[in-house]
């Protein structure tokens, strides 16, 4: 059996390979048959026949030589393979014969394929990438929320304990938190900023992840006593590489984080991260040590993010139902009504679905659609080129058919040609796509978190192959059918140049150009809308200055200053030194600069009988000078505010609008006494800021309270948060490149951990805050620009071709007295008709696709008439410009030469 299979396989292989050495095989066969006949004739001669008779006798005993040859050729390979080979050779010869044509087809298709492949690669990596863990679909994240089932509150241990005891939906529940404050892994001379995560010992087994080196934590029943793995640590691959050079000897070493010693027991493999996507910091994991803070359901309770693996057969829905029932009995145990409100239900989501930002997802899918449109435009363009070509080749095709090629055979040959062209385009397209992705990566319009090392996967290859084959089919099918449908006789009779079906062809090709124009208009309108969005965003009055400001985002090594007053020992000396730098006009600290998105402190309190929720920002008085915050009423902090003077606070208009006693007069809030940084001494509200955009440019601010940094001391409740992170803002006219090293130097002196702080300009922070709009706008600029280019090229190609074909007719017209201006108009009119039909069609398309982009727009309507008009005018103008060249050629035809060329 196996033997039979083996010999069948050998036969198959030999037959498949045969077409590749057709010539050699034919030659060998001829030689073999000839040698047979010679040998036979010789034997006959030896028996006494004349040479001629011997030859005839040899032929007779052989049987049909031609038949044998045919029979052998038939079985030597497969007929369809032979045909394919012939078609390929023919296609390559065609390409060699007209390299310019081939280049324009390949270039056009490559552009379309590259755009679609690159976009799909990004989408695949960001949206479709499966988590590299065992059965990741059954991992769910558990949070707590309000009665409506919304919210993402972390969960106190007491609730998790109850869940573990009472739920049946999960195999296991694990939970994780963070090491408080900003974390540094201490080295000999420097410290590496890291993201320190506390995890329940079973976390890795819940995820189904195993360490690359060493072991993971030993799963044990949670207890308040130190566990078996107390003071051990597992490193991520990147921390292992950066801090320990990837040496295996790291196992068993003692490392210090924020001053505490931990023994390294394991290293996770490359690419592993939990929680997902924590930015640029390398992660380390230490076991959670339960403490007295885990024995309450009050504000002081520690809280964790819980992740669980669903039992076989359990769905998120069934688990949600069970957890809702359990939580109903737990919620009443929250004695604080506010807390109870936020911990009312369990919010359960598949882990994979929590990883992608919804906005980004929408943006990427819309862009994928846009790249698909560009690909379609490229295909239509190539169809048009091939149509022109097949008209020019009508005579050749008619000849082949007259010689007996079936219509199917001709179609197949043309599709093969299309495949050769689209394969070449795909190869070029891969290069373009890779270059494009690299460019996007380095430009980083938005942090996509692409893992470049694993870019190619079967899905992407499948899409690429699919696009290639589809491109070939779409672009060749019509031209091939047209070519085959054309009657043979007239094509053979006429010079092949001007045929009867020409007019119909031109109309079809005109329709294709109109289609291209329509699709391009859609892309251009989308691009225009986003550009206007960006433009509008840039014009939004921020309420503060952003020029000439440098911002250093500092993660504070608070553990170094335990027992000391960081405000006095770190912040004040640091500010002092920066202020004395040459060229610095002012320097100040603020927990988070506007639009910074780095760190925020939530404040909840009661004021005038209202629940107040606000962002809290400790700031130093200089901040007002740096950003030029205008005051609506009252004053900002100044040098009269000291650690011992009366506590003061400043609020923003959003706060005043909500909580001022007189809603129409924000200044009525001034003098109000409320919560303070100092125990038992209420603060006065001394001023109302007049600025609106602190979180994002597109949205008005949330209520905000600012307190004076100098009034914070270790006894204040806010001292903890205020010593986690600070943004240092510096106003200076000096060049950025010169200032940054000087500032960095001062930071290094203040504390070695601060040397690696990110320093950027405020203008850049504003720019970065445009996020997905900017990404979409940039990509649409590329897509829209390419579409415009293709469509103009398509229009030009068609008109140039028509004019060439009609040279004789035009010559005759001129000879008969036609005005040259009239001929110019005739061609331009033809272009205008195509353009106008395209624009009309495109307006409809753009209108329909408005829904797709609406979510990204700011200050502009998805059906904005001006944008549409602008895009249409751009298309019409560039289209007419492209038409002008062939039109001028038409008007410039010399009747004598035109008539002579035929």
């Amino acid at each position, binding site marked *: 059996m196996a033997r039979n299979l*083996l*010999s069948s396989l*050998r036969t198959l292989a030999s037959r498949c390979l045969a077409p590749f050495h057709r010539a050699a095989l034919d030659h060998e066969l001829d*030689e073999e048959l000839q040698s047979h006949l010679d*040998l*036979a004739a010789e034997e006959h001669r030896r028996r006494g026949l004349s040479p001629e008779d011997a030859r005839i006798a040899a032929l007779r005993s052989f049987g049909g030589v031609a038949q044998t040859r045919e029979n052998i050729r038939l079985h030597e390979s497969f007929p369809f393979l032979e045909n394919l080979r012939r078609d390929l050779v023919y296609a390559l010869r065609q390409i060699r014969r007209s390299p310019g044509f081939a280049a324009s087809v390949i270039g056009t298709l490559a552009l379309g394929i590259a755009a679609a492949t690159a976009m799909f690669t990004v989408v695949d990596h960001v949206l479709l990438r499966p988590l590299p863990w065992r059965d990741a679909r059954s991992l769910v994240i558990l949070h707590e929320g309000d009665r409506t089932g919304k919210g993402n509150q972390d969960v106190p241990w007491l609730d998790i304990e109850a869940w573990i005891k009472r739920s049946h939906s999960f195999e296991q529940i694990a939970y994780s938190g963070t090491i408080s404050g900003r974390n540094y892994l201490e080295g000999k001379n420097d410290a590496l900023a890291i993201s320190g995560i506390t995890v329940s010992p079973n976390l890795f087994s819940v995820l189904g992840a195993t360490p690359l080196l060493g072991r993971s934590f030993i799963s044990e029943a949670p207890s308040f006593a130190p566990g078996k793995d107390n003071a051990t640590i597992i490193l991520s691959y990147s921390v292992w590489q950066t801090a320990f050079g990837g040496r295996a000897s790291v196992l068993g070493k003692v490392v210090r984080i924020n001053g505490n010693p931990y023994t390294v027991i394991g290293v996770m493999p490359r690419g592993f991260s939990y929680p997902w996507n924590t930015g640029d910091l390398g992660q380390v994991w230490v076991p959670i040590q339960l403490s007295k803070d885990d024995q309450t359901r009050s504000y002081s309770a520690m809280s964790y993010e819980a992740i669980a693996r669903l039992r076989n057969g359990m769905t998120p829905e069934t688990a949600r139902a069970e957890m809702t029932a359990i939580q109903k009995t737990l919620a009443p145990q929250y004695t604080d009504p506010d807390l109870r409100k936020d911990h009312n239900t369990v919010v359960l989501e598949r882990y994979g679905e929590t990883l992608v930002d919804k906005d980004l997802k929408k943006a990427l899918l819309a862009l994928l659609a846009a790249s698909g449109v560009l690909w379609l435009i490229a295909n239509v363009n190539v169809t048009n080129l091939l149509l022109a070509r097949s008209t020019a080749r009508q005579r050749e095709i008619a000849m082949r058919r007259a010689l007996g090629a079936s219509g199917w055979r001709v179609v197949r040959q043309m599709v093969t040609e299309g495949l050769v062209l689209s394969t070449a385009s795909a190869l070029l397209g891969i290069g373009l796509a890779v270059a494009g992705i690299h460019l996007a990566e380095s430009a980083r319009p938005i942090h996509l978190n692409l893992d470049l090392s694993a870019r190619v996967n079967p899905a992407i290859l499948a899409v690429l192959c699919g696009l290639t084959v589809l491109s070939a089919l779409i672009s060749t099918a019509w031209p091939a059918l047209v070519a085959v449908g054309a009657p043979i006789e007239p094509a053979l009779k006429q010079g092949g140049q001007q045929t009867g079906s020409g007019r119909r062809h031109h109309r079809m090709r005109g329709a294709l150009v109109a289609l291209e124009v329509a699709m391009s208009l859609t892309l251009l309108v989308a691009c225009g809308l986003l550009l206007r969005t960006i433009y509008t965003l840039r014009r939004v009055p921020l309420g503060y200055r952003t020029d000439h400001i440098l911002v250093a985002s500092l993660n504070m090594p608070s553990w170094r200053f335990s027992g000391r007053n960081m405000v006095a020992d770190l912040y004040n000396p640091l500010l002092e030194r920066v202020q004395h730098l040459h060229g610095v006009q002012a320097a100040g600290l603020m927990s988070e600069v506007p639009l910074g998105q780095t760190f925020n402190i939530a404040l909840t309190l009661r004021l005038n009988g209202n629940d107040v929720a606000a962002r809290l920002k400790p700031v130093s008085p200089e901040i007002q000078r740096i950003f030029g915050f205008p005051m609506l009423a009252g004053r900002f902090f100044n040098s009269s505010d000291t650690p011992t003077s009366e506590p003061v606070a400043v609020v923003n208009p959003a706060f005043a609008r909500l909580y001022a006693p007189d809603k129409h007069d924000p200044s009525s809030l001034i003098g109000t006494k409320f919560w303070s940084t100092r125990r038992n001494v209420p603060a006065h509200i001394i001023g109302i800021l007049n600025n609106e955009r602190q979180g994002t440019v597109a949205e008005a601010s949330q209520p905000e309270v600012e307190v004076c940094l100098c009034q914070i001391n270790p006894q204040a409740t806010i001292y903890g948060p205020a010593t986690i992170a600070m943004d240092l803002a510096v106003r200076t006219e000096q060049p950025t490149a010169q200032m940054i090293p000087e500032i960095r130097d001062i930071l290094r002196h203040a504390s070695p951990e601060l040397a690696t702080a990110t320093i950027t300009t405020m203008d850049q922070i504003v720019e970065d805050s445009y996020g997905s709009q900017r990404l979409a706008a940039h990509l649409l600029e590329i897509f829209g620009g390419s579409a415009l280019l293709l469509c103009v090229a398509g229009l030009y190609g068609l008109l140039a071709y028509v004019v060439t074909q009609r040279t004789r007719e035009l010559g005759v017209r001129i000879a008969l007295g036609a005005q040259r201006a009239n001929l110019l108009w005739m061609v331009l009119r033809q272009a205008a008709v195509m353009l106008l039909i395209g624009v009309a069609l495109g307006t409809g398309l753009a209108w329909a696709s408005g829904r797709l982009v609406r979510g990204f727009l700011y200050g502009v309507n998805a059906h904005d008439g001006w944008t549409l008009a602008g895009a249409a005018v751009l298309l019409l103008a560039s289209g007419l410009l492209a038409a002008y060249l062939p039109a001028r050629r038409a008007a410039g035809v010399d009747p004598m030469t035109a008539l002579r060329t035929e």
Partner: protein
Amino acid sequence: MEQGKSDVLQGTLDLMVLKTLESMGPLHGYGIARRIEQISEQTLSMNQGTIYPALLRLRQKGWIRAEWGTSENGRRARYYALTAAGKAQIARETQSWERVAATMARFLAANTGS
């Protein structure tokens, strides 16, 4: 591929070629054809040309291999030789052929007997 009588003939021809190469050693197409004619003592009416499709088939299956050489009278000719797989195939084919022949013989004997 072909049907009826020729099917049997094809199988037979393959075995004849293999057997010829086994007893005679490497041989060119003409030599094989002549040898088969001699052995069958003209009872088999066969065009010499039909030997070539059989040779192609056997070569594709890997049972024989071909090599260019020089014939006894100094001509270039393609020589065929048995491969190891070919030898094993002879044994198998002989066995199954003998089984068929024996069955047929028993059939014919039984029919004459009744």
